[in-house]
């Protein structure tokens, strides 16, 4: 049994040097924003942070004001019963429907169930497909 939703993801650009990750989380801490899921995509001299937070708008302004280049993206979030079966099933559904996955990461397990965040070629259709299958 899975439950999928469209959530706002916060992404930001950071150079790959000491203290940048600290600056990000210090900023979020001061803005009283809770991070639910998070990853860094690395590309040599820089990285792109992705995160799902409880208050995306506050996070966006706090990080922008701290000087970061930030963007908001609508993205697919899926709550899973069990990682093992669900990953198999979700990827099968997406493949059958010709939906590709750009990147994905899982939650910090704040909630009871594991949570999967995915940037796919068509979030709306992916949600529809998963909801029907569920």
């Amino acid at each position: 049994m899975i439950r999928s939703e469209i959530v706002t993801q916060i992404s930001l650009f950071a150079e790959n040097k000491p203290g940048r990750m600290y600056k990000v989380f210090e900023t979020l801490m001061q803005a009283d924003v809770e991070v639910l899921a998070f990853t860094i995509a690395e590309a040599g001299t820089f990285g792109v942070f992705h995160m799902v937070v409880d208050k995306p708008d506050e996070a966006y302004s706090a990080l922008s004001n701290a000087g970061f280049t930030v963007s908001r993206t609508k993205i697919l979030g899926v709550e899973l019963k069990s990682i093992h079966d669900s990953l198999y099933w979700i990827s099968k559904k997406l493949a059958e429907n010709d939906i590709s996955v750009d990147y994905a990461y899982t939650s910090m397990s704040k909630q009871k169930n594991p949570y999967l965040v995915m940037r796919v070629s068509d979030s709306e259709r992916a949600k529809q497909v998963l909801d029907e299958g569920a």
Partner: protein
Amino acid sequence: MMDYWDPLVERMPEDELREHQSKRLRHLVDYVYHHSTFYRRRLDEANVRPEDIHGIEDITRLPFTTKQDLRDTYPMGMFCVDQSQVVRFHASSGTTGKPTVVGYTHSDLKYWSLSLARALTSIGCGRRDVIQVGYGYGLFTGGLGLHYGAEMIGASVIPTSAGNTERQIELMQDLKTTAIACTPSYFLHIMEVAEGMGVDIERDTQLKKGIFGAEPWSDETRKRIERESGIDAYDIYGTSELSGPLFTECIHKCGIHIWGDMFYPEVIDPKTQEPVGDGEKGELVITTLTKEALPLIRYRIGDITILESERCECGRTHPRIMRILGRSDDMLVVRGVNIFPSQVEDVLMRIPEVGEHFQIIVDRDGALDVMTVQVEVTPQMFSDRVGDLMRLKNHIAARLRSVLNVSTNVELVEHGTLPRSMGKAKKVIDRRKNI
């Protein structure tokens, strides 16, 4: 409706202008020969006597002067007047060795202002304008130069100098500034700060014109400034050795008018020192025809440009120089290829997502030169997909490579990390000198 400050002089027929220049050159050579031991020695070494100079065509018989001459004769060894005749000094910053000092008599200051009065009139400025002078005031010639030129045409001058940007923007709104004179990089900074203050330059101010110079900038930067702030941006040119800022484009924006009755421009091949033809790239050489305190004969400025003698659409007959392409000494030689920072700027400005802040770093890896261009990531450029950023980075590198003929690393850096400049932007860091 085209306005002229000195209509008779500015539209003087070309042959009359040449006659005028010939007369002034004869007088100049005679004057320096009898008023300066430096020049007398120079002319004697070149085997030229004042009476050998009959007309402007004889100018090529005269020896060149250079910045090194000004340094060698520091502070006043090239002056043709003594201190009692000097009413002002300016001095260059002297970042590379000794500073250079320029002195002005009353007459020198009058001609300097006159040159700018003509220039400001040619871009449509006049008594109804409020001109904010955001060039530095002090030893640098930009602030005071523009100041007196703008006063001569009867404009209202706000001497803000550079810096204190929020205050500049408040004054711009309160005093209804219509024209601003500053470096292009400082104006880009003003645009950034205004945006942060919630001030839309196009909507919330009366600003219509910008007079930008004192550092190289490209036509692409002009387009960007004009597009994003709604003003007309004009190029201004001059050097401290010649006086300071002196010449601008007219409203047609097709080259900078050099007032031929005061200054005689030549463009030479820096290697052979032979004059190049109209429309050919070379080093600008200028002879001052009216200066008293520190006249310069065939002064090699070191700026690379193109000379255009065709009459301008505006009716002015005086020669024009095209936008400065770089400096012979700004020129970077990377793996044996000549590169001007302005070329890099030009490439970047043609890529819509790229912002105006960049820096060039040249380093050496073993025996190889390595050039890196750092570009700040703008919101327009940022994507949550690393692949998009890498594609853009590769696109920038490919464009640079095709224009410069040297492969270049491109490094994306965080917004706000590259130095913002109030004066001349420091765009190049050459680490090879430390090896």
